[in-house]
């Protein structure tokens, strides 16, 4: 059990802030441009870019200049776009499947404890296995197509999603459960009206870990199946064999942007779904 708990992430404070509840009285306003919020990180990014550029000019074989990265991006937009889409698809399909499967298994484990005692040791094995190491084996078994990439991506998100979903589905206010019990609510009613909504803060905390991991999974699976121009990971792998730093870093940049986009989208959805959660409200 203790291994379990170590992996549980307390529902995060990551929502982007203001609760919709405060909007109750006043009409929704456009967010103000708060310089105090935007300026410091902007300065930090600018400083980093300047340092990068300075270093890149004197050490062209360590990192490419920003200009080089921009050049390769602007000269081959189609190449990057196609590969970006491939990676995105792997993240969406593989990651989505892994997340859904993990949540369903968590439901099964909560409702029928025999599944937990039977499968949890297996899940611990899954947790300690470096999933990325399985990638080459899966590529040999399933070929250079999408299947092994979906599988690695699904596997890598599975455990964190499972553990957080389990914790969430169990995190039900006991007196609320008592109220449901005295009303003779059936299992389905307890599940739908109490367990699932109660689990959402944990589920979102799990997603915040799972989505960036899905990108890791997809990229590494693509490394293992390089040789095909499929996905940003494959692009990096090929460019590495040609020592083409600009292409590598352009791909990394795109992976970064993909991760940011996913995490930001998640934060927006979280704000909508979890408007009632204390962690969200504390930030108002």
């Amino acid at each position, binding site marked *: 059990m203790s291994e379990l708990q170590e992996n549980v992430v307390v529902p995060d404070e990551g929502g982007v802030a203001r609760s919709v509840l405060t909007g109750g009285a006043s009409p929704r306003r456009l967010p103000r441009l708060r310089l105090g919020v935007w300026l410091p990180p902007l300065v930090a990014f600018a400083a980093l870019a300047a340092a990068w550029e300075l270093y890149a000019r004197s050490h062209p074989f360590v990192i490419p200049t920003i200009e080089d990265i921009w050049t390769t991006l602007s000269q081959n937009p189609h190449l990057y776009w196609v590969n970006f889409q491939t990676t995105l698809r792997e993240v969406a399909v593989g990651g989505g499947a892994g997340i859904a499967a993990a949540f369903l298994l968590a439901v099964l484990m909560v409702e029928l404890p025999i599944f937990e005692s039977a499968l949890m040791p297996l899940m611990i094995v899954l947790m300690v296995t470096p999933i990325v190491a399985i990638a080459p084996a899966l590529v040999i078994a399933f070929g250079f197509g999408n299947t092994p990439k979906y599988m690695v991506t699904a596997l890598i998100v599975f455990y964190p999603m499972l553990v957080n979903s389990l914790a969430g589905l169990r995190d039900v206010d006991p007196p609320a459960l008592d109220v449901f019990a005295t*009303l003779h*609510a059936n299992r389905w009613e307890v599940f739908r009206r109490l367990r699932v909504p109660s689990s959402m803060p944990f589920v979102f905390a799990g997603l915040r870990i799972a989505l960036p991991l899905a990108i890791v999974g997809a990229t590494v699976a693509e490394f293992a199946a390089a040789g095909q121009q499929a996905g940003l990971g494959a692009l990096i792998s090929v460019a590495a064999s040609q020592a083409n730093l600009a292409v590598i870093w352009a791909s990394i940049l795109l992976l970064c942007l993909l991760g940011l986009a996913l995490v930001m989208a998640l934060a927006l959805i979280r704000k909508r779904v979890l408007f*009632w959660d204390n962690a969200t409200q504390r930030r108002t």
Partner: protein
Amino acid sequence: MPRPRHLTAKPDTPASKTAHSGVVVDGVTKSFGSGEDRTLVLDRMSLTIARGEFVSLIGPSGCGKSTLLKIVAGLLRADEGRVSIDGESVAAATRDKLIGLVPQSPALLPWRTVLGNVRLPVQLNRKANKDRALRDPEEVLRSFGLGKALKRYPSQLSGGMQQRVAIARAFVFDPGVLLMDEPFSALDELNRDQQRFGLLTFWQSNRKAVLFVTHSVPEAVMLSDRIVVMTTHPGGIHRIIENNLPRPRDAGVYEHPDFHRIESEVRSSLREVMEQSHV
């Protein structure tokens, strides 16, 4: 089957006459743990709450008053003895939604509005909604002074208001029996007094059998028809104090000459219990 609604206080009915309505607790024994660690929490406890009667359980902590409430609510099983509610077993009574529970914490669903929370009991176990006088949730909330908070979320309410929503939730499906486990204990004194009167007013026009667990003597006196002082280790009945303060009661009840007499009677019974438990 229509349930009579008592608008005024009725004189105490002898237990024998009401054996089939209200709550009958008969020889309930409960212990926790096993082997050497086994502790007897309730020892052959018997108690009757007539329809429309307000009974408070008071006693030192560990006297098993919450345990008794949980057994009546069907949340715990008695080792021995039985409980019946309107002549049915507890299991049958929960199936028919005859029990309204107000736990110590309001236990509202934070993702539902006030109105949504009060609608919940109507939405669950719909089979039991047949042939019963469901109340309009909005109307119940208005009579609890929450008419302006219908669309708010629990986190936007004060603790006292949250507890009032929890009480409204217990009344809305018109159960015959209300079980309340120290519902006001988390509130500050001023707020608590206000909530007590809110409950008193509403209950006096919607009489249900109430089992009310408390550790506040004035609270027990102002609300109840009878006050059950419990012994401790194991829990049982030390004494039942009849409280014939006239109804309907309002804030003036504190000034009633009998109020302090009954209050000190309860206090001295509680002292006896404490002394016995220290012997």
